[in-house]
């Protein structure tokens, strides 16, 4: 009899739906309550549930800390990238109307969709990073104590949470 059988099976059933719901909330922000922040947190909650049930190591193999750190930066760059794109198209910063020169309203729609996606990516990645850092702290300190020199870069980052 595997340990924690019931939570494991329920998690396996529910996590895909949680992630899907997160994406739903993300892209339906202009028709109902939703948007980037909420979606990011829901998405991260799905991943954290997986880490809680199946263990931090397996979660780390699925979503590597390096990937997550990259996503944190990527989301912010998507947001700012839209702003720079509108600058280059000749309008003010973040004037989404400029994105579609024939129909400003459609440009607004497109702009908001993209920036909310950037926000959702960053928020989800930050939440997952925070969880990895806190949950994996014991392991990190053991590893830091066991190596004399800390020349490993990339894997364990003591990033104390990033302000979004």
């Amino acid at each position, binding site marked *: 009899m595997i340990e924690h059988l019931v939570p494991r099976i329920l998690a396996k059933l529910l996590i895909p739906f949680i992630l899907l719901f997160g994406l739903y909330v993300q892209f339906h922000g202009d*028709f*109902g*309550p939703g*948007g980037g*922040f909420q979606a990011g947190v829901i998405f991260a909650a799905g991943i954290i549930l997986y880490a809680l049930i199946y263990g931090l190591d397996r979660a780390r193999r699925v979503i590597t800390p390096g990937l997550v750190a990259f996503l944190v930066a990527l989301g912010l760059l998507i947001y700012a990238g839209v702003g720079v794109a509108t600058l280059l198209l000749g309008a003010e910063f973040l004037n989404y109307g400029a994105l579609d020169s024939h129909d400003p309203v459609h440009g607004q729609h497109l702009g908001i969709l993209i920036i909310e996606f950037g926000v959702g990516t960053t*928020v989800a990645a930050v939440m997952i990073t*925070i969880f990895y*850092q*806190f949950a994996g*702290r014991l392991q990190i*300190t053991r590893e830091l104590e066991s190596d004399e020199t800390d020349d490993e870069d990339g894997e364990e980052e*003591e990033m*104390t*949470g*990033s*302000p*979004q």
Partner: protein
Amino acid sequence: MMEWLGQFNYYVFAILMMAGIYVAMSRGNLVKKVVGLNIFQASVFLLYISSGKIWGGTAPILGDGLTQPISNPLPHVLILTAIVVGVATTSIGLALIVRIKEAYGTVEEDEIAEAEALYEEELIRAEEAEA
């Protein structure tokens, strides 16, 4: 009397605000301070959102034209930002607490003060040993 009931949210805001500040200032345990800050910030969210509600107003979503009065959406947006700021502050506070725990072995303020005094004495002793 009806006015008092209508302003109920604002009384709750005031009480929570003072409770949060009190916890943040008076409790010696660092985690409790962070919790107090959270309560304080939550009270501010209540203030903003209560101010945006209009009686008879529905959710501020633009369907096919405006048929009903809608509640003011701006406070909601402001509070989303403030909530994220609160989450970031809490996470940095907790990360600092984890590192303080590793450095000093405790999260109680008075014990940390003693440990810091010991650390400084050892630092001075180490420097004098060099001299």
